[in-house]
């Protein structure tokens, strides 16, 4: 092992065969480098005499370039077998951070590109990456690394779990590109909800997701468009919910409008059974003395005499 100084223009820093960090926040690293310099130099191998290849430290190199540095120290290790180099690289990274799903995807992609077989990855690398040693999982990560950059960025930024990433796989590239600006503004749970609802509506109505997206855009266009993407994302989510659960949404709205119609007082809370699964309704109100209790009870009595109140009771038996 030896340390040398290498110009940042050296071809060692152009060969990306071991690079797997493409998406990361540069600002913190910039501050750190400005404060204390390069405490841990990047390391690599000497492929041929005088021909170096950077293995670990890509983020530091990218930021050092941004800072206008000309030269950095470079640690050269004596190893030539790619699989062993990967093992060292993964172990070193794992020692100081948790590898993200996107990191693992690029590691697998690069290993496959170097000719390391799926079988070798399954046996020697999967456990190191803490993923199930199955070819299907290797394919999953390979697929992830092939996604367009905007989608990968959202997966990394939102730390999306495997289930949601698989949902994204089910969409065509142009559909994902149409969805990403909205998904960026939603939480993980809402992203899952949107992707599932859209897919399920498409399957039920025998449409392509792109057609549903276009129909929503046309509708929004007629309403003079919403420039705020976060609000638009929320509207899109609501729109899908209505389309996905039309009967439930209609029932819920009918219930709400009936409460308005009979002037249900806001100080008395009324709740149907969850999802109207049972007939019972629950009312609750607060009172601090006898008079308040009498007052509320009298309000309820008046409400109970309203003819329309019957419509609140959901289930009806068939006529005999």
């Amino acid at each position, binding site marked *: 092992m030896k340390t040398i100084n290498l110009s940042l223009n050296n071809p060692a820093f152009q060969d990306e065969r071991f690079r797997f960090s493409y998406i990361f926040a540069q600002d913190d690293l910039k501050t750190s480098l400005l404060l204390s310099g390069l405490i841990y130099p990047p390391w690599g191998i000497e492929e041929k005499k005088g021909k170096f290849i950077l293995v670990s430290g890509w983020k530091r190199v990218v930021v050092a370039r941004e800072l206008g540095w000309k030269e950095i120290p470079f640690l050269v290790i004596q190893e030539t077998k790619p699989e062993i180099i990967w093992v060292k690289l993964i172990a070193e990274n794992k020692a100081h951070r948790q590898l993200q799903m996107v990191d693992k995807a690029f590691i697998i992609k690069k290993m496959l590109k170097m000719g390391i077989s799926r079988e070798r990855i399954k046996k020697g690398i999967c456990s190191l990456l803490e993923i199930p040693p*199955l*070819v*299907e999982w290797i394919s999953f990560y390979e697929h992830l690394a092939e996604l367009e950059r905007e989608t990968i960025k959202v997966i990394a930024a939102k730390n999306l779990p495997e*289930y949601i990433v698989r949902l994204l796989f*089910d969409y065509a590239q142009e559909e994902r590109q149409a969805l990403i600006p909205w998904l960026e503004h939603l939480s993980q749970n809402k992203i899952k909800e949107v992707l599932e609802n859209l*897919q*399920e*509506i498409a*399957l*039920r109505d025998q449409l392509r997701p792109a057609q549903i997206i276009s129909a929503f855009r046309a509708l929004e266009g007629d309403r003079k468009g919403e420039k705020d993407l976060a609000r638009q994302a929320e509207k899109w989510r609501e729109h899908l919910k209505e389309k*996905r*659960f*039309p*009967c*439930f949404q209609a*029932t819920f709205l009918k219930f709400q409008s009936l409460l308005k119609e009979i002037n249900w007082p806001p100080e008395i809370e009324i709740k149907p059974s*969850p*999802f*109207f*699964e*049972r*007939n019972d309704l629950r009312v609750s109100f607060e009172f601090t003395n006898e008079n308040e209790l009498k007052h509320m009870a009298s309000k309820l009595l008046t409400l109970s005499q309203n003819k329309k109140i019957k419509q609140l009771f*959901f*289930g*009806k*038996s*068939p006529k*005999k």
Partner: protein
Amino acid sequence: MNFIEKVFVVAEAYSYPLTQRILNQLQLKPQIVSGTEEVRQEIAGEEDIIKKGKKILVLDISKAKFIKPCPCTPVYLGCGYLVINADLNCPLDCSYCILQSYLDQPWLTVFVNQDQLAQEISYWGHKRKGYFRIGTGELGDSLALDPLTQRSRDLCQMFFSYPQAILELKTKTTSIDLILKQKCLPNVVIAWSLNAEEIAHREEKGAPPVKDRLLAAKEVVKKGYRVAFHFDPLIWYRNWEEGYGQVVEFLMANIPAEKVAWISLGALRFPPQLKAIIKKRFPNSLCLTQEFIRGLDGKYRIFRPLRVEMYRQVMNFFKASKRYQKVKFYLCMESAEVWNEVMGEKKRSERGICVFLSRPLN
């Protein structure tokens, strides 16, 4: 039974007569194992272990009780049914099948210690004086493995002495050869799970068309058996009324009402963990497109007004026939509210439903 690729016999189970009968039929060299852990290792690396499991047969002995009260589902109304867990899992591959998430052993298991099963049947036969319903179709199809196991014949023999026990053999198959060959017992009911033909074609992989099932039912009726039908799970799709209507029409045209022991209706429901499995194994399944809510038991269920609409409509199809108006209908795993909405207001209990369904019509 050429779908079976491998047979494992747990050493303890080897000497049982049923094991020998099955091995003679199969003509596959069995692998003798000390326990099912070795079977698990066999399929561990498979991408779709559920699919693979359907090609592996394990002959084992049951250390648990064979007969148990049907667990039904919490909060909703049960029907007092008893289940016989003699075979576990099913070679058919229905998208909505609960067994995909319910069983932790994905292979087909046949429990061969029928001596214990006979003892348990005797116990329940002596314990219950009134009529009661009991069946094998809970954790597997009652007849799918019958050509291999001849279990139906053994069960009929075991139930011969207990006429108050109504044995139901529930299937989606047309494996009725053995049923037709044996003497018909009045306390044996052969039942079919039915669906709209489009749903069966799309969601019930490996199962015969619904018309074929009904023609098999017709054969069984000719032999003298009573039959039952389960429209379960009812699945909402475009043209569902037409689809279910056609099946009911064909059923009524081929099966005399007086030979129908009961008909059940149940809308699609499943525990949340099954959704990911369906999505992975059957990405185009209509089960994923239902208007689901979370039921009182935590399971996904179709929103109540929609399931009530389906129940009422299917019942109306039957009510078009005067003869079918007398048939006993019941709802599987439904709330008292939904029973009332579909069948009319009445105070109902599990005991009442159990008695209503078990007692003979005449």
